């Protein structure tokens, strides 16, 4: 199948025609690229749309689910993982994708993030990290680099950013990967692996916000910021050759965690069996 044919088939099959496009994102935004990678990943896995739920919180990234023809839910700020936990528990057979921004997942929803990872419940979290609160106009977020300017950091940002991968790893996630919106194929591959993983999986999709943080910090246009993702990111094997200081200025891409830990809803099924056996035994 020609590439254009494949793309138009994906459009027809996965995008909601009753929803009037265009989308809410600024021209040049990376969020649509992540959505494209998710749709292609789901297509690659040949999942039935009825079996896929896409749940989001609030913010630019939170607006993603409404455009795609799955079971979609746009919840409250930071709570998408908690909503998804309830759904996954009663419908463990469904593939539940949780789409969050960095503020959504790590600030207001940070507690839910570490606890969902600790439980290792079978949710696929995709964090679009644009280093800022975009929808409200470029305030600093938990991933904003130290020293950067933001509309709420007019004198420069003094906090350290959360390392998303390390946080997910330490909290107990079964699968953790990172790529960027420049590396579309790699991002798609990691999303496929994440959805396929039985436990709690995290994919950090590094993006940018050219209309807020990019403009304030004079980081350039969307293409220029995209080029920086290409030039400034390295694989894990490349990272190993660098010392810590050199590495800290780079975006390291790759799969950082892929481990087998019993998944929560499967463990709960055992609880049910135990409870029912105990009841029969009296």
């Amino acid at each position, binding site marked *: 199948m020609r590439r254009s044919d494949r793309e138009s088939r994906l459009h027809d099959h996965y995008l909601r025609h009753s929803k009037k496009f265009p989308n809410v994102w600024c021209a040049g935004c990376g969020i649509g690229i992540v959505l494209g990678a998710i749709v292609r990943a789901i297509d690659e896995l040949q999942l039935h749309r009825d079996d896929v739920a896409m749940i989001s919180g609030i913010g630019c990234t939170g607006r993603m689910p409404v455009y795609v023809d799955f079971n979609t839910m746009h*919840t*409250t700020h930071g*709570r998408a993982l908690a*909503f998804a936990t309830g759904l996954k*528990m*009663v419908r463990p057979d469904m593939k539940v994708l949780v789409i969050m921004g960095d503020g959504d997942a790590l600030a207001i929803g940070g507690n*839910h993030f570490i606890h969902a990872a600790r439980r290792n419940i079978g949710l696929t979290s995709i964090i679009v990290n644009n280093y800022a609160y975009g929808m409200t106009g470029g305030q600093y977020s938990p991933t904003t680099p130290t020293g950067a300017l933001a509309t709420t950091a007019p004198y420069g940002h003094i906090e350290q950013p959360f390392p998303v991968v390390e946080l997910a790893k330490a909290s107990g996630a079964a699968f953790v990967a990172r790529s960027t919106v420049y590396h579309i194929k790699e991002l798609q591959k990691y999303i496929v692996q994440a959805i396929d993983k039985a436990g709690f999986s995290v994919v950090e999709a590094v993006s940018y916000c050219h209309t807020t943080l990019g403009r304030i910090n004079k980081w350039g246009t969307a293409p220029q910021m995209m080029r920086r993702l290409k030039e400034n990111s390295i694989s894990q094997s490349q990272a190993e050759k660098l010392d810590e200081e050199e590495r800290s200025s780079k975006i390291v891409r790759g799969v950082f965690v892929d481990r087998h830990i019993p998944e929560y809803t499967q463990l709960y099924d055992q609880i049910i069996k135990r409870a*029912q056996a105990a009841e029969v035994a009296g």
Partner: protein
Amino acid sequence: MSKPKKEEPNAQLMQGDEACAEGALAAGCTFFAGYPITPATEIAEILSLKLPQIGGKFIEMEDEIASLAAVIGASVGGAKAMTATSGPGFSLMQENIGYAVMAEIPCVIVDVQRMGPSTGRPTRTSQGDVMQARWGTHGDHPIIALCPSSVHETFDLTIQAFNFSERYRIPVILLMEEIIGHMRERVVLPDPATIEREARLQTTVPPDWYKPYENYPTDVPPMVPFGQGYRYNITGLHHDVRGYPTDRPDEIRPWLRRMRLKIERSLSDILLYEENNQQDEDGVEILVIAYGSVARTAHHAVEMARKRGSKVNFLKLQTIWPFAEEVVEHAAEGINRVIVPEMNLGQLALEVERVLGRQRVHRVNKADGTMLRPNEILAAIEEWTR
């Protein structure tokens, strides 16, 4: 001492929190998410034991915000779902209560009230969350809140809460009190076969035709759980009939109207109350309106007053939200004095005053963590009789 009652085989000594858990199970609840908090923790403990026995699911979440979120998620997945908390946790749940109202997701939120504000007194009773149950979440919205006055009524109203939430696609708040939650009483629960359980409304249209938020066939459109072939969008934003976000006033107005009407048109179903009127209906001087545990104290006081010659009518409200305006108006017809005893500084009294006017309404309030005693209400009745 009165003679012990004849032994009933199914009689049991039960705590209010336990009756709530049993009521939930009887109503068909298969999912509970919660966070430990006095005086509601027993509900979670019991359901963690009993839900898996029937194939249901229990989870202790990281906080009350997550608890209600998980409950809403489970309801979207097709389960009848509940959470239980007390004041501080109820405060944390407010945003997601609004979400459930906006997205019209059935769920039950139990608030076993304790003294507030803030941490207050965790083991002391209160009716301090009455207004919070009505207006705790932001924005104009309908809500249903029920108030049990006994252990048995806790069982009954928990079932009713589930039934209303499914029937009207709305979060229903069961407003218990510490004194009800922790009190043990003799109860005889009904035969499970006789209990009415509201099933979720099913759609009759194929997926392509399904609109989750249209006023068809009634003001309460059927809600299809996720994963059954009806792929649609749920959002806390204002939305059109398909659930897609909208800014258009012409799409928002019908939603607002339906939200109001789905409750207003069904008041005769939703408003639960009991009247206990003076046998001799002429010359009734006083009406006492109460709810929750205070309704029992008040009833006792009313009977004491009647024995002493006062002419008193009594109205017990089980549904406190929506407020039973017409019921109160009707009950107070021709009566000059209306007494509203509450274990707060006067919350539902504000509603009674709104309906009947301030001149006719006399408040009896206690908010120190101890229960109102019959004598305190009796004193008010007698003061106003004179």
